[in-house]
C-alpha cells in the first residue's frame, strides 16, 4: 500500500496504517511539513502530543507545531519566541507613536481654541509638551513584566 502513505510514513519508511495518527495532518503532497516537525520534535513526541488531544483539535495542533518548528528551523536560537519579542517591541513602538501623535493633536486643539497664541512662540512649549508625552510613553513597560495587556 505504498501509494497511499502519508508524508510522515513515507519519511519514516514504514507502512501507513488505516488509523495512522499523522495521515490527516501530513498529506503526501506536502512532505516538507513533516520534515520540519520531525527535525525539531521527533515523530514519537508529535504522535504523543496529537494522541492526547481530542480529534477535532488535532488539526490546529499540527498547524501550530509546524509553525513553531519552521520558526525554529529559521532561527535556531530563539525560534518563535523571537517573534514574540519582536511583536512586543512593535507594540511598544506603536504605543509610543500613538502617544506622540495624540500629544500633537492636543497641542493643535489647544491652539485652535486659543488662536491668539502664535505658532512660532508656541514651538518651545510644543516641544516641551511633546517631550513630556514621550517620557510618559517610555514608562510603558511591556516586555519586562510580560503582563501588560496579557491575561
Amino acid at each position, binding site marked *: 500500500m505504498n501509494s497511499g502513505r502519508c508524508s510522515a510514513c513515507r519519511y519514516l519508511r514504514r507502512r501507513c496504517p488505516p488509523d495512522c495518527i499523522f495521515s490527516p495532518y501530513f498529506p503526501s503532497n506536502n512532505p516538507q511539513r513533516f520534515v520540519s516537525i520531525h527535525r525539531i*520534535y521527533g515523530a514519537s513526541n508529535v504522535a504523543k502530543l496529537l494522541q492526547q488531544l481530542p480529534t477535532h483539535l488535532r488539526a490546529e495542533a499540527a498547524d501550530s507545531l509546524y509553525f513553531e518548528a519552521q520558526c525554529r528551523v529559521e532561527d*535556531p536560537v530563539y525560534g518563535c519566541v523571537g517573534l514574540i519579542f519582536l511583536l512586543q517591541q512593535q507594540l511598544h*513602538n506603536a504605543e509610543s507613536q500613538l502617544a506622540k501623535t495624540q500629544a500633537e493633536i492636543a497641542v*493643535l486643539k489647544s491652539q485652535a481654541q486659543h488662536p491668539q497664541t502664535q*505658532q512660532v512662540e508656541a514651538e518651545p512649549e510644543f516641544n516641551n509638551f511633546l517631550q513630556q508625552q514621550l517620557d510618559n510613553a517610555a514608562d510603558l513597560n511591556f516586555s519586562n513584566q510580560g503582563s501588560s495587556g*496579557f491575561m
Partner: protein
Amino acid sequence: MASSSSYNSPCAACKFLRRKCMPGCIFAPYFPPEEPQKFANVHKIFGASNVTKLLNELLPHQREDAVNSLAYEAEARVRDPVYGCVGAISFLQRQVQRLQKELDAANADLIRYACNDIPTALPAPPGVSSVQPLTPRHRPADFNRRIGSEGAGGFYHPTGAFPLPYSFPWNDNSSGDINDGGGEGGM
C-alpha cells in the same frame, strides 16, 4: 548517584534521565538541579536527543538563550497543547493590529487639524505609521493554508487569551530604541 558536575550534584537533565552527570555535560550549564521542571517540560515536548542536536549546532554563547527559548516554548505547549506559543503570537498580532488602526486614525485626525485649523507651518505629521508589518521571513511558506485570516493574513485565532508563562530572562535590558519595526527574529 556519583556525580562529576561542577555543582557537585547532577544537573536536572541527568537527574531526570537517571544517568551520571559527566564533566562537559551539554545540559549542565542550562538545567540546574534546582529547576527540575524546566528540563521535564523540554524533554516532554522536544526530547533530550533533539535538544542535544539543536545545541550542538549552535555556538556556545548562543546556547543559553536557545535553551531558555526552548523551555519557554515547552512550557507554553504543556499549558496549551493545541496552540502553544502560537496563542501568544496571535494575541500580540491582534494587539499590534488594533494599535495600528488607532495610530492611523490619530494620524488622520492630526492631518485634519494641521490642514484645517493652523495655516502656518507645523512639524509634518507622519503620513504613514512606521510600525511595519511582520516580514514574511517570520511566516512559513504555507502557513496560511488552514488558517482563516482577518486582515493581514496568517494569524491564528485561538479561542481564548493566552497568558505568557513568564517574562523572558533576556528582556531585562530591553529598550524602546529599536525603531526598524522588525526584520530580525533574534536579538
